[in-house]
């Protein structure tokens, strides 16, 4: 498997774990972003860390998105038990992110950073909103990711 392929596989596995912990039935693009932040030590993780985005920070602002007008706090129920299995299904947002990453360079030139680029390419949806809420310049982050390409 190529470096890109191995890296993508590792991010996907971590993303599935993030989705499981989230009680999500499918892997969303934000779980892939968390997978990059908690995933293999590689260029994309460093780019996120330099922007002040580690796993904990992303988790927090992802949760703050739930404040979009409704709250689980309205129901006085204990936190549900997590699923024992990691979800296999990729949501449309995750599929788009991977497709955008994998088509952002000729196949032989693909690197781990392209995975992050694919995630950052979404103009709408949870990831760009979360980044905007956290005060992160998405275009700037994408530019730094691009510059980190070997």
């Amino acid at each position: 498997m190529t470096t890109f392929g191995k890296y993508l596989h590792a991010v996907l596995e971590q993303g599935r774990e993030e989705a499981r912990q989230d009680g999500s039935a499918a892997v969303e693009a934000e779980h892939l972003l968390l997978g990059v932040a908690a995933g293999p030590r590689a260029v994309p993780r460093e780019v996120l860390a330099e922007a002040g985005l580690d796993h904990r920070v992303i988790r927090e602002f992802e949760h703050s998105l739930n404040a979009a007008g409704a709250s689980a706090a309205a129901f006085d129920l204990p936190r549900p038990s997590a699923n024992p299995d990691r979800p296999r299904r990729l949501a449309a947002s995750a599929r788009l992110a991977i497709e955008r990453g994998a088509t952002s360079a000729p196949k032989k030139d693909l690197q781990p950073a392209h995975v992050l680029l694919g995630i950052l390419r979404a103009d709408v949806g949870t990831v760009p909103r979360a980044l905007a809420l956290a005060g992160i310049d998405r275009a700037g982050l994408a530019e730094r990711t691009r510059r980190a390409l070997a």
Partner: protein
Amino acid sequence: MSGEPITAVSSDPADALAAVAALRRLADRVEDAAVEQAMRAGWSWPQVAEALGVTRQAVHKKHAKRLIAAGVVLRRRDDDHVR
């Protein structure tokens, strides 16, 4: 997470669409919690399914594995008749 009530004050479709996505996630999460609490309280699958307005098969398929892994004692179907 804030405890704000649902008030659609924004006229920006981006906000409205994001709210829809967040509400779907919230609904899933509340369903997970509510089904678990009901089953812990001794409800049967048919009761939970009827309360949710879905089939027994659907609710079982969606939640059984998670609840069994969490150690919830699930009522067997026969128990309904014994009551």
